[in-house]
């Protein structure tokens, strides 16, 4: 059948399109296009004035060429000329060209805007509509500036035609989306809300879209829309299907409008007015009832439209999350859809149930569908549906069904599509960790993950299993045995070799008693994989070998031989060669004691703190060491057979929820950092031999004193080494130099300022630093103290600048930091001694190294003493080291957020404060403060867009605490409500106190 050109055919255009379609090749097409472009150009440039029709035709051809994907660099002027034509079709083509090929050429924009202005004021509705369509299609800032006043005026003017109102409403919506700042709210806003009552359903449909957009940004201004929307919805839902005439779509009354009204209601909490609320509940019940009625038509359009309204109603029910009966009904309805023959409905039911799973009212109801969902995972033919099933299983998982769900996900992983494997791996890893009751199960699960989908197991996952094995001695033997068995497979994934190498290197001794896994067999097993592995894995294996030398003296010879071979000692890779050389030398010259110290078992993680500090602390003397030991022992006794997960994991191990955020927050990837090739001296060796993620703590720490102290004896180190007798219990391997260094760090314990009465502690600027790190902390006529600080994980460094504002020297200058009980056990602050003289006008810099051991409330005090002229000055300033400094932000999706929020529902985990705003309630400033506070600011999580939601993890040496916060401003009352939920009540309290002072 020939295509029919309706209305005004442009024969030249049709011929040109045919020509293009007849082109046999891309080259021919380009040739034809270039010919046409040359023709059009000459026509436009020619002396003969073109008539409107020709201009229209050529502009249309240019448009066609552009839509084919070619660049067009002329013709804009001709298109603009068409805008002022009196002939509708010419004007129309002009506008189409402008809409598609908008050009930011400013001269042109002015001309275009002029033409639009003329049409808007023409009072010809067809022309007005064209102009409004053009503004809506282009939606540029220039247009928003030019028409920000006109469009609202047209929208609410009494004499505007309905069709123009519709265009104006959506035109305004578009401008509001692109340049909200240019669209001032005003008198028109209240009149827009009343468009919900308009007689013309087309106007109501367009206006509802606009109101949704506006209400999301300014909920308070559009509150009145709620009752109007409920009334309108109620009328639609109860109408007979013929009442609405052409707005009835396949026997469904105004489905588009219904969906939009339900959407609008999702911008607000449930209506407070009981009557309105009751009416809305009735509407929702009616919609749910209709789903059970026999269909009025067999057409898919009928069921689609009906179900579109139903799903939107369910979204609203979930959003309100307040009517248990409705929630359960919604869940049952979705359950029916899970088995529906329409793939689309199954997909949507899985998707929608995911959100239901996080409501406390319906979580259990969702769980009853587990078998259906697992079945979907196995039988659905469409990957996007299976993906939804995975998501839902993840969302419905809790302790009661974790084992089943993880097992099903693992078995699905064997055949899963490549596109979603990595995501599944991550989900399995998270669930296994979150709901692990026995850690043997956790280890099995992760090893299975590596076996099934090794390529998709990211570093974070296998780091994590190692961290957990290291930190939990009840699982170490099992882990060693399991990896040993897994490594027996002829072909195993390289990630398994990494985990295996690491674990056997640490804990191989635990299974060495069994002759089937004797040291030599272990070594041979690992070494049989060596040649198939990449360089980083080989490097890790070399470290495992040297650990073997320490664990099993009987295989020392065998391993030395391997290290000595040319393929190691002369390896082309500098890292491998270096390790081989250094390990070989180490094993030859070091005494057993030194070897045992250097190659000692890894200390418990988290190791993201400075590794040297950690090691030193462990060596520091019985007090702190036993801390660590005690907690480990305590844990042991606790854990055996204990099912109570939380009590078992209080101290060294983060609580389950922070665990997860930890995994998600993804520690900085510990790759082998490039380093300069070291000199051949064996003395430099321990500073660099091992890959940082693995053994850096170990090798670097105990030997550091040998070089650092002796080779660069800085005066302050010596100056502080005045109490070397303290450390009677330091291990034999530590030399004098080592204990010297140890003392440096023990210096962080409180030292009273010398012979001075304590000055009152100044705190006036303290709270200013809660959300920022730099600035002036204190100033008087003599002295200015500035701060610059940075924090990472549980460590911080603070640069303190002391500015002498006078022209006279400060003498005997000293500045020290004091942590009073109980802070001294929670925070380590190491101060380097400042220079005792500060010249007039000069600035002195002092560095503080800070380590957070556990959560704390108090802040340290900075004591400053100096002599100025004849008098001694004492100043004590509260140092703004606050708990929130040790935040790492955590990004998460709405669903995750609320799931965790719910998990932290113990009364003592939540702290809430309602307080009056002290500053202007500016959204941007508030956002900046929350980010400055250290959490991630989560957009789109809170259903109410004016609320702020944040998440982060507090890192301390002993624990990590996941924190969720929510700040709800009430601009009318000038009040805020701040809610903090963390796994530790003390942390919630402190964070709430700190943050509430900021607004």
């Amino acid at each position, binding site marked *: *059948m020939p295509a029919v050109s309706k209305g005004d055919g442009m*024969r030249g255009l*049709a011929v040109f399109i045919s020509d293009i379609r007849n082109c046999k090749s891309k080259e021919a097409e380009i040739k034809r296009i270039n010919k046409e472009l040359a023709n059009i150009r000459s026509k436009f440039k020619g002396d003969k004035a073109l008539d409107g029709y020709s201009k229209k035709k050529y502009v249309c051809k240019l448009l066609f060429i552009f839509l084919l994907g070619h660049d067009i660099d002329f013709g804009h002027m001709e298109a603009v000329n068409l805008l002022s034509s009196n002939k509708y079709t010419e004007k*129309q083509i002009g506008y189409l060209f402008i809409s598609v090929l908008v050009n930011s050429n400013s001269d042109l924009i002015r001309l275009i805007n002029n033409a639009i202005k003329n049409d808007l004021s023409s009072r010809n509705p067809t022309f007005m509509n064209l102009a409004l369509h053009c503004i809506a299609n282009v939606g540029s800032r220039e247009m928003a500036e030019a028409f920000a006043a006109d469009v609202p005026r047209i929208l609410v003017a009494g004499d505007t035609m309905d069709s123009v109102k519709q265009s104006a409403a*959506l035109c305004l919506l578009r401008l509001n*989306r692109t340049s909200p700042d240019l669209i001032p709210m005003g008198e028109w806003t209240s009149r827009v809300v009343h468009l919900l009552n308009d007689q013309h359903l*087309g106007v109501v449909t367009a206006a509802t879209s606009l109101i949704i957009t506006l209400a999301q940004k300014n909920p308070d201004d559009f509150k009145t829309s709620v009752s109007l929307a409920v009334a309108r919805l109620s009328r639609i839902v109860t109408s007979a299907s013929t009442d609405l005439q052409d707005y009835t779509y396949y026997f469904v009354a105004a*489905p*588009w409008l219904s969906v939009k009204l339900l*959407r609008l209601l999702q911008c607000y909490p449930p209506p407070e007015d009981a009557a309105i609320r009751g009416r809305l509940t009735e509407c929702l019940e009616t919609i749910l009832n209709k789903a059970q009625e026999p269909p009025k038509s067999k057409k898919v359009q009928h069921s689609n439209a009906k179900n579109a309204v139903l799903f939107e109603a369910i979204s609203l029910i979930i959003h309100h999350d307040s009517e248990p009966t409705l929630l359960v009904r919604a869940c049952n309805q979705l359950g029916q859809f899970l088995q529906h023959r329409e793939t689309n409905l199954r997909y949507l039911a899985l998707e929608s149930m995911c959100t239901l799973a996080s409501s406390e009212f319906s979580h259990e109801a969702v769980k009853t569908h587990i078998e259906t969902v697992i079945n979907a995972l196995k039988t659905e033919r469409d990957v996007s549906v299976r993906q939804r099933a995975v998501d839902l299983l993840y969302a419905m998982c809790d302790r009661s069904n974790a084992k089943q769900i993880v097992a099903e996900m693992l078995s699905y992983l064997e055949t899963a599509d490549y596109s979603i494997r990595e995501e599944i791996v991550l989900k399995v890893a998270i669930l296994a960790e979150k709901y692990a009751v026995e850690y043997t199960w956790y280890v099995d699960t992760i090893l299975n993950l590596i076996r099934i989908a090794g390529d998709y197991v990211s570093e974070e996952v296998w780091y994590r299993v190692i961290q957990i094995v290291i930190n939990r001695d009840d699982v170490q033997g099992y882990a060693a045995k399991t990896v040993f068995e897994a490594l027996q497979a002829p072909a195993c994934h390289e990630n398994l070799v990494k985990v295996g190498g690491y674990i056997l290197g640490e804990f191989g001794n635990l299974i060495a008693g069994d002759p089937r896994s004797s040291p030599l067999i272990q070594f041979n097993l690992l070494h049989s994989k060596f040649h198939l592995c990449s360089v980083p894995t080989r490097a890790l294996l070399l470290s495992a070998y040297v650990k073997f030398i320490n664990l099993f003296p009987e295989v020392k010879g065998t391993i030395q031989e391997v290290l000595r071979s040319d393929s190691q000692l002369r390896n082309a890779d500098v890292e491998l060669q270096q390790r081989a050389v250094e390990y070989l030398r180490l094993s030859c010259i070091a005494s057993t004691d030194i070897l045992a110290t250097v190659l000692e078992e890894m200390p418990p993680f988290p190791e993201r703190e400075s590794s040297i500090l950690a090691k030193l602390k462990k060596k520091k003397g019985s007090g702190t060491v036993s801390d660590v030991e005690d907690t480990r022992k305590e844990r042991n006794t606790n854990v055996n057979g204990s099912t109570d997960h939380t009590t078992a994991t209080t101290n060294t191990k983060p609580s389950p929820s922070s665990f997860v955020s930890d995994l998600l927050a993804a520690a900085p990837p510990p790759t082998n950092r490039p380093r300069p090739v070291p000199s051949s001296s064996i003395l430099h060796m321990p500073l660099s031999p091992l890959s940082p993620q693995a053994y850096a703590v170990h090798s670097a720490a105990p030997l550091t004193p040998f070089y650092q102290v002796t080779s660069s004896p800085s005066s302050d180190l010596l100056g502080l080494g005045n109490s070397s007798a303290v450390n009677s219990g330091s291990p034999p391997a530590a030399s004098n130099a080592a204990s010297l260094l140890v003392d440096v760090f023990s210096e962080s314990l409180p030292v009273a300022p010398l012979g001075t009465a304590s000055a009152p502690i100044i705190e006036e600027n303290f709270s200013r630093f809660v959300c920022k790190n730099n600035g002036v902390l204190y100033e008087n006529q003599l002295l200015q103290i500035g701060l610059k600080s940075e924090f990472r994980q549980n460590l911080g460094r603070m640069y303190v600048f002391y500015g002498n504002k006078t022209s006279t020297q400060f003498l005997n200058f000293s500045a020290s930091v004091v942590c009073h009980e109980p802070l001294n056990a929670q925070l380590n602050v190491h101060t380097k001694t400042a220079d005792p003289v500060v010249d007039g006008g000069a600035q002195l810099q002092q560095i503080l190294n800070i380590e957070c051991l556990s959560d704390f409330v108090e802040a340290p005090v900075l004591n400053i003493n100096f002599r100025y002229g004849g008098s001694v000055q004492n100043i004590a300033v509260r140092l703004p080291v606050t708990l929130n400094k040790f935040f790492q932000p955590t990004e998460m999706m709405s669903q995750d957020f609320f799931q965790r929020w719910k998990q932290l529902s113990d009364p003592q985990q939540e702290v809430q404060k309602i307080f009056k705003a002290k500053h202007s309630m500016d959204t941007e400033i508030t956002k900046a403060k929350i980010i400055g506070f250290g959490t991630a600011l989560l957009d789109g999580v809170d259903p109410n867009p004016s609320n702020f939601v944040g998440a982060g993890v507090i890192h301390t040496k002993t624990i990590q605490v996941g924190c969720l916060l929510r700040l709800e401003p009430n601009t009318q009352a000038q009040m805020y409500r701040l809610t903090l939920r963390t796994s530790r009540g003390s942390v919630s309290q402190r964070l709430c106190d700190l943050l509430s002072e900021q607004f």
Partner: protein
Amino acid sequence: MQFMLLFSRQGKLRLQKWYVPLSDKEKKKITRELVQTVLARKPKMCSFLEWRDLKIVYKRYASLYFCCAIEDQDNELITLEIIHRYVELLDKYFGSVCELDIIFNFEKAYFILDEFLLGGEAQETSKKNVLKAIEQADLLQENLDFQIRLFPGVLGPNVSAESSGLFQS
């Protein structure tokens, strides 16, 4: 809705409408990627898929794919019916519409779309009202010449698929 694309089974783009500002380069990239993704899907698969941070809703009518990108909060099923209503409008206007109608009268396809959707939202969902607006516009034009029917000779070869009505399959 962020954008709507119409493309043929051969992957030729027939209509593109963008409701968010994007560079030409980005538009081309998105088009390429989506056309490929959608064409690779099998007939009985579901009409929705996740793509980047958007939801794609698509449906095939005869030789043409209609494909919409909507945001997370938007309703998939109602979008499917947006597509259907647009096809109905085209069908009514052209009289048993086929892909060729859209190729040769692409400007009309854009005009009808603008009457139906604006700024990515439904402006007028009544079929009668949309067609009335378009026909009024047609009446406005000079009733002079150029009422040309295209003859089969002009169309070129291989038109069978493109000339089959969208509602016939």
